[in-house]
């Protein structure tokens, strides 16, 4: 396979090619700057805002991180509880199933009605979206655990709580990886939507204000920063999970 430095090089070249192409298209004047400003105009917009950008980035980053963490942890917890207490699971399942297909964005008007433009409402929306993804993912992952591990744990005299703590939880972690990444991506969009609709700061707010003044470079700046934020969080999330699951035999290892 590719060495680490080779892999990084490939990513850098690919990103550079993208921005190069973007710059090329704008430099050739094929598209009006109002519709697609050049990368340098975006950079300029960023420099004009300077430190003024910081509170926006900070607010959005905080909302994504806290909403995601609360929602993901709550969702995993709830998923485990539904299998630990089958009665609770049966009682909760119809609610989960009926809420799951509803896009959380559809709830925004109600959230604004109930909670105004408060941070609390935003966090609740994001957490709810993440939790719904992770409850189901956790339930599926628990179903997929090989029964022989559970039997082995029982035969060694583990109590039910310890079976969940020391066998079920670590066993489902690799499978939760995809669910966590999807939930993280959803948190980014939910935060932005909630900021579009009402906020005093944040990248979504920055984009809305820029839209009013037709400041396309600032809009693009906001989008790029959002992309950068979610890329960073996703990278950290992957590293974190990989760290917790070094015990796995991965395909990359066996192909090497």
């Amino acid at each position, binding site marked *: 396979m590719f060495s680490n430095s080779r892999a990084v090089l490939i990513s850098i070249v690919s990103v550079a090619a993208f921005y190069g192409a973007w710059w090329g298209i704008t430099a050739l004047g094929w598209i009006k700057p109002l519709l697609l400003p050049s990368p340098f105009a975006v950079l300029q917009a960023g420099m004009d805002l300077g430190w003024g950008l910081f509170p926006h980035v900070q607010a959005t980053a905080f909302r994504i991180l806290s909403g995601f963490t609360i929602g993901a942890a709550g969702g995993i917890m709830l998923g485990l509880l539904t299998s630990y207490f089958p009665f609770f699971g049966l009682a909760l399942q119809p609610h989960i199933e009926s809420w799951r297909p509803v896009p959380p964005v559809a709830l925004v008007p109600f959230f604004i009605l109930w909670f105004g433009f408060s941070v609390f409402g935003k966090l609740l929306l994001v957490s709810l979206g993440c939790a719904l993804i992770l409850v189901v993912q956790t339930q599926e992952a628990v179903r997929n655990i090989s029964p022989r591990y559970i*039997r082995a744990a*029982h035969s060694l005299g583990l109590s039910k709580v310890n079976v969940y703590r020391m066998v079920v939880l670590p*066993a489902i972690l690799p499978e939760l990886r995809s669910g966590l990444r999807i939930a993280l991506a959803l948190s980014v969009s939910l935060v932005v939507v909630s900021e579009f609709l009402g906020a005093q700061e944040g990248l979504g707010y920055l984009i809305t204000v820029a839209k009013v003044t037709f400041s396309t470079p600032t809009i693009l700046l906001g989008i790029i920063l959002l992309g950068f934020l979610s890329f960073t969080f996703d990278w950290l999330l992957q590293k974190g999970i990989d760290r917790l699951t070094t015990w796995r035999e991965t395909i990359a290892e066996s192909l090497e």
Partner: protein
Amino acid sequence: MPKRTILHLEQLHKSYSVEGKDFPVLENIDLTIKSPEIVSIVGRSGCGKTTLLNVIAGFLQPTHGKVYLDGKEVHANDQRIPMIFQQDTVFPWLTVHKNLTINPLVNAEESHQWLEHVELGEKKHIHPKFLSGGMRKRVEMARAFAGKPPMVLADEPFGFLDPVTKRRLQGLLSEVWAKQRTIVLFSTHDVEESLILSDRVVVLGGSPARIQRIISIPFLRPRPESLRFEPEFQHLRKEVEEILEMK
């Protein structure tokens, strides 16, 4: 061994229900085993060995009949009887050492000793993905015997191993057993394995499976490798194989 453990199987029957139909697998299984005794269950593939061990372990409810351990009935999942499984069940997310100490009755010291017994002292702190299949079986063996269990069950424990590793682990099993002298009840389709390891061989056969014969093995312990070539050993081997080939 201060106290003798007694396992008693009384008129065990087990049927599976397959697509609504009853499918009997085990019938009229009566057996009493006292520690220190190693008993093997021999039978063809699919005859019900795993099913029987799972019933004894309490993983499956018998259709009729009862399992008693020291006079107490074994109910589903409430009795702690360690089992070495047919497939690999070493927990991959725990180090070798923690695979033993996950048992609430096993402390660090005991884990260390058992890992030494199965010659895995050096591999104590690594994850199972770095171990070979034979090493993982040894982890399972140590894990099953640690914590002074009343008995140890093993379901074709060496089924997937090459002949050399298999013999080595058979030797190791009798050594490990000699330190603990608990009841060991294991299944195998390898007649030689059953003769070299056990005090009694229970031959299962028929459909649904019943106990065809229980054969006492007279050889003294420790049993040398050369025993395999003795005429008496070969004779017993033929006897068991003939019962297996009936029906």
